[in-house]
Each structure stands twice: as structure tokens, then as C-alpha cells.
């Protein structure tokens, strides 16, 4: 088990308003920082660590060097290749971000207190009501900040705002037991059904995830709540017939077809630039998008497993565009 951050505040790296991709209706998605998994295809590399992280946008920088003058740790240097951040020495104090006139420097991760975070998300209450939407907590892995998360979910529910928990499933079952009473919908990722491959691609085996999936399925069925399964469709890693059939079989047999919906999310490469800005290498940066035809083959396989309400979305490329 990874470290659980216990704090009065939550470390959040993004609050996305009018999100339409993280559950029903119009939602606000709150992205919690830190993740226990290390998926090769991870689309939110800024979510992984439990500390705030600095990023630099080349196209916004006006070259004024205010950041270098501001930094007391002397971790920044600017040359013709751009701004270099000595990430070993950077203490993420954020002073350079504050002084940068052009917002070329940005800090992933900000500490929010409960009142502040709730005030921010309640602003769109009207839209939640009209659309049967609400708040989605995502990440990273939100359950790693379970104490703050629990208080946040309680506050939302207490004020009539519907909640969804987007989770990788890799957490102590007790945490789920505590959180589930305050969650209306669980968005659970099942990425790879083969545990060895799961470990190879994400850094952990999948047994805990699958056990938690069963726990959640039972809970939602007994308590009139909902569960959706989400599977990232990544060429060479998860986009195989065996994997889709295996996940389908698991949903039917072990989860007794309780999940209301199964989403196949096709690979996208929009995060390439984020990796660069964080000075991280991304093994999949040259991986091509799938074609619509390719994803629809898998979609048909998924539908044939008997799981109800299979959907797909995400980026595809047109065939001739190689």
C-alpha cells in the first residue's frame, strides 16, 4: 500500500468545470494528486507524485528571467534550449510561478481547504441539477487522500450534490467501505485482466483491484447506487481481443453484470507535451492513434461478451493518415 496523505487540506492539480466525460450530466471533476500505479500509457503524468510540480510553457515565455531572479534555491537556468529546472533541488515553493508575468511557469498541485474547495464546486450546482450531474473526484488516485476526500464527499452529499468516485481500484478495501456511503457512482478502471501483464504495464498486480471491484459491485447493488467500468484501449497493451473478452467475462461472472455501463476509452496522445514540460520520458509518445475501424472491432467484441451498455469514445485517426 502506498502512503496515505492525512491532512486538513487536499492536494489538487486541476478542477475542471463543465466536464462531460466523467460520469452523467454536467460535472465538475476534481483531480487529486498522487497515484499508486505507474501505467505506461498514463495521460496525467502530473498526477503521479505527492508533491507539487513545476512545468514551463515555452510558447508563453517572454524570456524576462524574472523566475531566475526570484528563485532562492537557484534551480532555474535559461539557455537556447529553454528553461531548465533542477528537479532534484526544486522545493516547489511556487515563488517563481507567482512572479512569472506570462504564466509560462505553472505549478501542478495546490493545497485546498475543505470550505474553499466546496465553495468552488458548488458554483455550478444549477447545472448539476438540470443535468443530473454532480462532482467527480478523480486523479491521480483520490483514495490516497482518503481523510480529506471523505470529508469532501460528505459535504457534497450533505448539500445535495451528487458524487462520483473515479478510482483505479488499488486501495485498501476499508477505505472503500468508508467512502462508498457518500458516493453515488463509482467509475472503476479495469485495464488489464491478466495480472502478470497488469504488473508489467502498471507496476502492480490486479488482484486487489478485482477484489475491490466485487466489493463495490455488491455495495452498489445493495444500496441502489451505480458503477461504471472504464477500460483504456491502448494499442499493444490493452487493445487486444483476449483482454476485452477477459474483462467482459469478469464483469458478467464476478460482477454479475451489475455495472450500468462499460466505457472503452481509446488511446490519445494529447499528453505528450505535458511529459515534455515535466522533463519526463514517455515511452508511448510515438504510438499512433487507433483508427475508428480498429476501435470498433474491439467495441463489437465487448458488446458480444454480454455486458450491458458498452460505449466507446476518444480520439481516432482517419485511416489514410499514417
Amino acid at each position, binding site marked *: 500500500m502506498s502512503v496515505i496523505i492525512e491532512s486538513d487540506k487536499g492536494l489538487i492539480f486541476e478542477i475542471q468545470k*463543465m466536464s462531460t466525460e466523467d460520469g452523467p450530466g454536467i460535472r465538475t471533476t476534481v483531480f487529486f494528486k498522487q497515484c499508486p500505479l505507474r501505467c505506461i500509457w498514463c495521460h*496525467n503524468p502530473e498526477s503521479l507524485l505527492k508533491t507539487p510540480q513545476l512545468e514551463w510553457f515555452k510558447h508563453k515565455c517572454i524570456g524576462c528571467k524574472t523566475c531566475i531572479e526570484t528563485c532562492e534555491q537557484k534551480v532555474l537556468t535559461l539557455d537556447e534550449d529553454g528553461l531548465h529546472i533542477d528537479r532534484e533541488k526544486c522545493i516547489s515553493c511556487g515563488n517563481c510561478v507567482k512572479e512569472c508575468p506570462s504564466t509560462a511557469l505553472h505549478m501542478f498541485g495546490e493545497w485546498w481547504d475543505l470550505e474553499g474547495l466546496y465553495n468552488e464546486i458548488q458554483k455550478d450546482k444549477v447545472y448539476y441539477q438540470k443535468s443530473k450531474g454532480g462532482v467527480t473526484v478523480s486523479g491521480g*488516485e483520490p483514495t490516497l487522500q482518503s481523510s480529506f476526500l471523505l470529508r469532501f464527499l460528505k459535504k457534497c452529499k450533505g448539500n445535495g450534490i451528487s458524487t462520483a468516485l*473515479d478510482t483505479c481500484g488499488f486501495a485498501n478495501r476499508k477505505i472503500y467501505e468508508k467512502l462508498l456511503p457518500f458516493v453515488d457512482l463509482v467509475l472503476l478502471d479495469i485495464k488489464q485482466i491478466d495480472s502478470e501483464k497488469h504488473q508489467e504495464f502498471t507496476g502492480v498486480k490486479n488482484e486487489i483491484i478485482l477484489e475491490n471491484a466485487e466489493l463495490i459491485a455488491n455495495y452498489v447493488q445493495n444500496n441502489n447506487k451505480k458503477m461504471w467500468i472504464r477500460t483504456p484501449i491502448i494499442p499493444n497493451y490493452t487493445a487486444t481481443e483476449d483482454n476485452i473478452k477477459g474483462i467482459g467475462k469478469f464483469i458478467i461472472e464476478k460482477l454479475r453484470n451489475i455495472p450500468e455501463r462499460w466505457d472503452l476509452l481509446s488511446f490519445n496522445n494529447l499528453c505528450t507535451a505535458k511529459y515534455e514540460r515535466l522533463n519526463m520520458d514517455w515511452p508511448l509518445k510515438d504510438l499512433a492513434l487507433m483508427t475508428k475501424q480498429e476501435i470498433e472491432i474491439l467495441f463489437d467484441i465487448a458488446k458480444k461478451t454480454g455486458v450491458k451498455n458498452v460505449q466507446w469514445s476518444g480520439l481516432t485517426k482517419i485511416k489514410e493518415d499514417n
Partner: protein
Amino acid sequence: MSEINENLGKQERSQRFQIAEPENLSKRSKWLRDYFYKGRGRKWNNQFTPFTTGTDWDINWHEGDWYINPEVYFYIQALGKKDMGVFASSYRSMASPVKLPENFWELSIPERRIFFLKEVMLNYIPQEIISENDLIAGGRFNTQLSKCFNKKEAKKYWKWNIKNREANFKYHYSGFGNIGAAPGHIIPDYETVIKKGFKYIYEKAIKRYELLSKNDKRGPKGQELRAIITATEIPRKFAKKYADECKKLKEKASSPQRVEELEKMAQNLERVPWEPAETFWQAVQSLWITHMLLMAEESYPGAGLSFGRMDQYLWPYYKKDVIEEKFISKEFAKDILGSFWFHCNTAYDAMIILGRQGITSGYGQLLTLSGCGPNGEDLTNELTYTILEVIDEWYPSLEPKPNVKLHRNSPDKLLDTVINMISRAQGAPFLINFDERSMAGLIAEGIPKEEVWNYACVGCLENTMQGNDRSGTVNCNPNLVKTMELILWNGKNMPGNDKAIKKGEQLGPKSGNPENFQTWKEFWNAWRKQMEFVIKYTVDIYDKDEDIVAKLMPTPLLSSIVRGCIEKGLDIRQGGPELRFVTVNGVGFATLVDSLLAIKKFVYDEKKYTIAQIKDAIMNNFEGLEYEKMSVFLKNKAPKFGNDSDEADELARNIMKTWADECWKFKTPNNYQYRPGMLSWNYWAGEDAGLTIATPDGRKKGTFLSNAICPTSGADLKGPTAVTNSVGRAIGGITEGGELINYLPNGTSQTITFNPSILRDPEHREKFKSYLRGYIENGGTCLQINMLDTEMLKDAQIHPDNYKNLLVRVTGYNAYFTGIGKELQDEIITRECHKM
């Protein structure tokens, strides 16, 4: 985990760059549409035709009608020269003389003017049926009529006009915006004309005239009412001429079906608009003949001369003919409307292009659809949907301009239709108006709660009542951002920025040397003083612009169908209507808000800069390394309106309230009450932007100001719900009891650009529908939606020939993307494009 939160949806590049084309048009409507779009290649057109009394001093083009179009100032006259400009003199020299009766010069001005209109429309303008495809009679109406002045009046006009011109030009060229008493911008009482006929109005005018005392009959009331009586007979005589033309054409008709149609048309024209309409066809015919005559009278085509709630007043006819008695088919009813659509578009024949930003023209024959009834119930009917079909099939086209009213009880079917249309076009082919917020503003101006539901829109989006309300909805357009310059230089222009004034002239009050202000409160008070001055300066000029048309250029035909005028014996331009307002539309709201926010934060809260430093930076237009850095800092690091931030939006609301309260303090000499609005048409992108020096929000001289109620370009970073919440809050917000507040009775538009992927499937369309329902509660009065892919727009800049049909919405106007200036194109591309 959210692996794919930057999801773009199931879109493929190959589908992205399709431009909507007209579709499903009937053969007949297609012919009419194609014919219109032949433009100069057509045999027939509806160009301005000028007419004169033949006197040496005649005037048939009043420049004041165009003062709110600063892009034509050049053609009015260069500063300092005291005679006719290019337009006035060329219309004068091209004008055909009209034969006048012997007693003409003994008549009063209104009687002369109405006689002149009558002569021109009956005996000088040919009555033509455009084609066998046309079901609605009424071709040419674009006139420039003599003002019918005698020599003494002409002299008076010129003396007055030159004074007004100098005042207006000074106001404009020193960066205050523009002002003018524009024609149109009203919903005449078309409903009464259709349902009761001009006969009823004629009789009402006669009765009113007979009640006048002998003295009054000799005076202005008698003159006006006699002119109105003459006016109400013009439509009958004019329609009769068209009836004759239809009968004549029967002989040449190519088919028995056309013979039958021409017979019907002749019958229609012998009945309406004099008698009440009995059929749908007659109702539309009655409407068109009346409308075109009003445009002829004002010599200004379709300047916000609007139809009101057409789907409501035409509904009884449609219901009877199409649904109950099946007297005509729905397809035929659509062709009747199609002919009407065609004629509305011919307003554009008057002049091809106006202005370098090319918002094609100041036309806005607006029709309003749907909306609520007296108890909040929905009034959508089958005709609403039929008209929406016509709009959809004709898309893209420019006129008439539709607004769809939404409210808490709008049915899902209507919203689904609206969203389908949005997804087919590059955005909504109509503006969406929001009843609850709009009505809150109208109630605040004194409209009774029992009546307010029947409001409708004129021009672009301006809220007025129907048939009795002239609200001068576009007449005063002060540049709010000017107040910043006046505070910083203590009531003067920035040194060097004095092209149109005496060097160092004290324009506004001395609000104090800002460099000595110790607190934000002092700065705010100085802003208030300058803002009060700007409004007073504006109304003083407008009072005179209004008075010249009131005293010298009455419009008796229009007056006859605006309730209140006959009753009072007063022309519409002299204070006749029951509801009388003049709207002051603040321009550059968010630029002002952001400028004040930047000063508050960095000068007073954080003390990062001094006022002296800000002034230096502005004088240097933020050029040079240090100032560039400052400009970038101010642009990025200050709070901005449009992000649902309490601090920014509360100041925005305060500015709005303070400004709106001040507008209500004034009335014109003709008894029109000033009221606030925020239309800001194209000025923010055009003339005003060019004349506004750099601003404390980091904006450089000449770049665009903010548009209407929108945030400054690219400042809204939190998505569509956040910007919507900001807009709703700025125009008033909600009381603790949950009642909507609206400081702007005229309304204001929010333009929002979405990526087309948000409507990619039924699930997302439902979400979008909910967003619109949320807008009703949290948003402003009016929303214009663009559905544009940034890549497509960039491609359109490179290959304009492939995108001739690409229509985008610019401040309430549809404009062809390839026909607008590069600057405005770039602005549209950089608008925050919201992916959901």
C-alpha cells in the same frame, strides 16, 4: 483514474471542415434564394432610389440617421467642412423630381412628408412581382425621400445639423464612442394591422381628429393626425396597384397553377392590409406590405425594424388554414414564408458593403419565436417549428434574423430542435433570448408584470414591448473605457491624444491627481465622477440629435401603427409612443472591469506598481522591455471578469449597477427616458478600439475592447459554466429569495464558442441542453453560440474560396467569415473555444 480527460470525442478530421449548405428547400424557395444570391448578376434589384421635391435646397439623406455607423463618417463629411458630404450630395444629384400639387408648400411638414411618400410609392416606384416563384407581392422599397423642407426649414436644418455634426464628431474622434438618433429599432403594431386592418387604424385616427378642438386642428396635433390619416390609406392604394399587376401577369402566366396563384394574390391584395386578414397567406402579405412601406418611409431598410412574436400572431391563421381546414399544405405555407424571407433579404440591395470590419450592414429585421405566456406557460406551437424549419432550410442567410426565447417551461422538443439546428450550422442560426432574466429588466423599467411576458426583441437582441414601445435601442454607445483615460489624466486626454480637441482641453471634471490617491476608495470615487460625466456628455449630445428629427423629420405612417401616437396626436419621433426610452449601451465593459481590477490589486492591494508607473506604461503603449513585461504581467496576473471569481465578479456587478443607476437619471426633451443596455455592436472591434489608448489591464492601443457582456478576449479560462455565472452575476445576480435581477432592460449578448465535438452524440446533446437550462437560471439575457473548429477557421483564412458560405455570429449579426476583416477573423479564432 481519468486516463482521458482531454477527450476530443469521436471526431475525424475528414468530417471537420464541412460548411453548412441550404438543404431541403422546395424548388420554389430554392429558386428565390439562389436568385437573391446572384447579387449584382440579377436583372432586378432593390437599390436605393432617391427622390426630390426639385428645390435647390432639398435634402434627401439625413446624416444623423447614420451617426451610429462611424465607419461612414468619412462619407458624411471630413471634420471642419460645413456642407454636404459624398452620400448626401450624390443622392441629391441622382434624385428624380416628384411632381407636387400647388398647395404642397402650404402644408405642414408631416403632411408634406406623407404626401411625398404616397406619391413616390404609388406613382414613381414600379410595382413588380419578382418571379413566378414569388407568392408575396412587394418588390422595391429602398428609397431616399426628400425631407420636403422649404427654404427656411432647410436653412434651420443645416445650421442645426452642422452643430450636431461637430458635437458628434468631436465625441467620436476623441474616443467617447458614438451617438445618433437611428431609425427603426421598433416592433410596430403589426398584429393590429393583420387582425384589424388599416381600416381600423384609419377610423381610429379620424375619430381622434374629430375630437380635437378647432385650435388643435390648426396646430401640430391636427397636422400630425391629418398626416396619419393620409398615411393609413397608402397601404390600401399601394396593395391595389399590386393587385392590378397580378391580374396583368395572369395573361403571361406559364401555367394554370400560376394563373390561380395570381388570382389569389390579387384577391389577397384587394383585401389586405386594409381589411383584417382571413387567411395565413393574407396575413403574411399584409405584414410584408406594411413592413416594406415603413422601410420606404424611413429611407433606411430594416434598421432593426422588427416583426415581434410572429409565431404567435400568425398562429391562428396557420392553425386554421394548415392544420384544421387544410386549406393549404404545410409545404405551401413554407413557400409563402420563403417568399417573405426573400423579400426581407432584398434590404441588402441598398448598399453592398459598409465599413472595413464588414459586418455587412446595420440591418436587423428580427423575428421572435417561442417564449412564455402570462403564467410562465410555454407558447411554442406548430408554426414555431415550421418557421424553424424555414430558417434551417434557408441557412445560411442573413435576413430575417430570428431570436428564440427560452424559459423555465420551454419544452424538450424545442430545445432538441434548437440543438439539432446548432449542430448542423456553424453555430446557432438564431440568438437565444432568456425570458426570466430579460423580463426582470423590463419589470425594473416599469412594465407591469401582467404584460411583460409579451416582450420581444428588436435589431439584434434588444428587449422591448410590442407595438407601443420605442426604446432607441442602439442610439447611445459610450465607450466605458474612456473613463480610465479621464481618471488617469484628471479629466483630460492623455498628452498627445488630442487630435479632435484643443491641446490640453479639460474634457471631464477634475477628479483629482490620481498619483496622490492613497486608497482604492479614492480611485473608485474618481471613476464614478468621470463615469457620471461620460453619461451626461452623452445625453447632452443625444438630446440634440433626437430633437432635430423630432422637429423636422416626423414619420406619420410608422406613427399610425405605434400605440400612443394617434391617442396623443404626437409623432413617434416627438414622444408619441406609450413606452418611450433611449438606450445607453456601454461599450467595453470587461475591458473597464479588468482595468479597475488590475489597478485595485497591483496599485492598492499589493502595491506592486504606482499610478505614475501605470501612466508611463500607457503613454509608452507598453512598448520597450520593461513595459512589455508589465503588459504581460497585467494581462495574466490580475483577476479577470469571466471566471466565476467572487472578487472580480462582485466588482463587475458594482460597476454595472453604478453605471446603470446613473443612466436612469436623464430624460430627453421629447420625453424619452434614458435606460441602460450593453449591446456594443461592432464598435468594440472597430472604431472604438482604434481610438482607445492602452489600458491598465495590459491591453495596447488599438487592440479590441471586450464585446458586449463578454470577458476580454481569452480571459475566461474556466469554461462555459463559469463565464455564464459571471455574466449573470454582473448584470444583477439573484436575490436571496431566488429572484433574478437584471440591471439592463435592453439586454446584452454573450458570445460563446464551442468546439463541435460537444454535440457529437445524443448523450452530449442532452448535456448541452442542460447547460441551456442552467443558463436560464444563472446566465444573462441573450446567448449567441458559435460552433467552430479553430483549425477550420485557420484554413478558411488561407483558402477563403472554399468557405464562402461560412457564417459566424458577430455581436448579434451573422456575417460571412471570409467577408470580415483579418483583425476580426483573428479575434474569432482567439476567442476561448470551449471544449466540454
